[in-house]
């Protein structure tokens, strides 16, 4: 099997997500839908002042999408909105540009376990799968700004 794309962490988190339990009374929510395949991620976020306290996701999608949602929820807990934006850009650069670029990435927070998604870059048709949770995040955080 393709160990390069499907890191064991991706398979594990897709099968047994750690951040998928329903979140009571979220402060903001957002949804990402991929009309090409019908996959969908819904995020519920609880805020603590200017910080993200907790994220829960409900994902109906492939392993790439589901694992990204779970690892994203984990990574963003405790982050400020600005840090979440920065991580979103950094993740996008990981998929679209392939590697961290010191010149543009200097000072940005580390992706941590989300680095496991790096091989998705070689599978152009699957990049949208990994981006879906971030689209949901963007929608959710737009409600904070409003």
């Amino acid at each position: 099997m393709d160990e390069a794309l499907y890191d064991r962490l991706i398979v594990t988190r897709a099968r047994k997500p750690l951040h998928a339990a329903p979140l009571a009374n979220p402060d903001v929510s957002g949804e990402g839908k991929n009309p090409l395949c019908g996959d969908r991620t819904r995020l519920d976020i609880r805020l603590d002042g200017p910080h993200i306290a907790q994220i829960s996701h409900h994902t109906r999608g492939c392993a790439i999408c589901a694992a990204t949602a779970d690892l994203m929820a984990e990574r963003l807990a405790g982050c400020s909105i600005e840090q979440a934006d920065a991580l979103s850009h950094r993740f996008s650069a990981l998929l679209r540009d392939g590697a961290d670029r010191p010149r543009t990435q200097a000072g940005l927070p580390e992706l941590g376990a989300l680095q496991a998604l790096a091989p998705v870059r070689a599978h152009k048709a699957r990049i949208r799968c990994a981006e879906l949770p971030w689209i949901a995040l963007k929608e959710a955080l737009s409600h904070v700004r409003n």
Partner: protein
Amino acid sequence: MTAMTTTPPHTGGFDLAAIRAQFPILSETVHGRPLVFLDSAASAQKPEAVISAMAETMRHQYANIHRGLHWMSERTTEAYENARDLIAGFLNAPSRNEIIFTRNSTEAINLVAHSFGSMLKPGQAVLISEMEHHANLIPWQMLRDRAGIELRVAPITDAGDIDLPALEALLADGKVALVAITHMSNVLGTITPARQIADMAHAAGALVLFDGSQAVVHHRTDVQALGADFYTFTGHKLYGPTGIGVLWARQALLEDMPPFLGGGDMISTVTFEKATWAHVPHKFEAGTPAIVEAIGLGAAVSWVDAIGFEAIAAHEQALTTHALARLAEVPGLVVTGNPACRGGVVSFTMADVHPHDIATLLDRNGIAVRAGHHCAEPLMRRLGLSATARASFGIYTSKDEIDTLADTLVRIRDFFV
């Protein structure tokens, strides 16, 4: 399901190795493995006969058609019109004038929706089914919104067949002007009982259109025996090129229908005040058509006819039986639908493995399948699914390739569970 050893032999007069040798692409490798191409329902590969017919046209005998007064134009016109003759024979059309070249089946259906559709009035209805490809749904939705007609949808059974009593009930009030139904589902593989549907439609005063995009590939199509009024198909699924499709319709209908697109080649006389239309089929072929592609489709039709649909259908039926048996052995795999009559298309889902992950992992093993909603979102919703994986078979598919698919699916399942 029966085991593979009980599937009937199908090699009488059908030399699979010789057929495969005519498809240059089948000797390619993907990710270092031999290509196993199980995505023919999306688009089929091309035999040397088609490739060389098109290349030879462009190399030796090409010019614009119909109005040229020079040798090259006359020869190219002959080749283009010869393709029309070949396709008329392929469909057993009563007249070559009933063959309209379009870009694809989608454009052929849009032609009917615009042209025939413009003659419909509010209060009339078009009846489709739950298993339609978007190509045979969206043009009718657009017509409904444009013309104020009603769009009715005949249900399917849980097995994936058209619910014929329900279809007949939807025809009962006599308001349906056209029944537009697939002749073979691109998701379920269901071959629909076209003749029966045509008889029901006609008894209720409706005309009938069959979307033959999948069906023409797998068995002989006789538009007269089917009782069809309109029949559409696309070239690229029939081992021909992209960019060329066919609308067949009864000549009287075509003569009554207004043109679809206006432009060169479709006129008789033109002044600044008005124009009169060319006779069919040219009335419906505005502008320079896909000349090389039509010639390529003619070559494809000749090539398929030379092999013969009896042998093709037997080969593909054996493959489908074998595939259903082998896929039944894959833990957690569920084949979508169980229609009464199935062509060489098998959709499936696997517990705990998303269709996209299946497709990606199969691809890493050189196996091409399709995953998603297959341009049939309402059908997916009816089935309670968001996506399936789909393996589809062509004239060149082998049992070994299906075995490779099944064995790899077992390994994928083991990887994920």
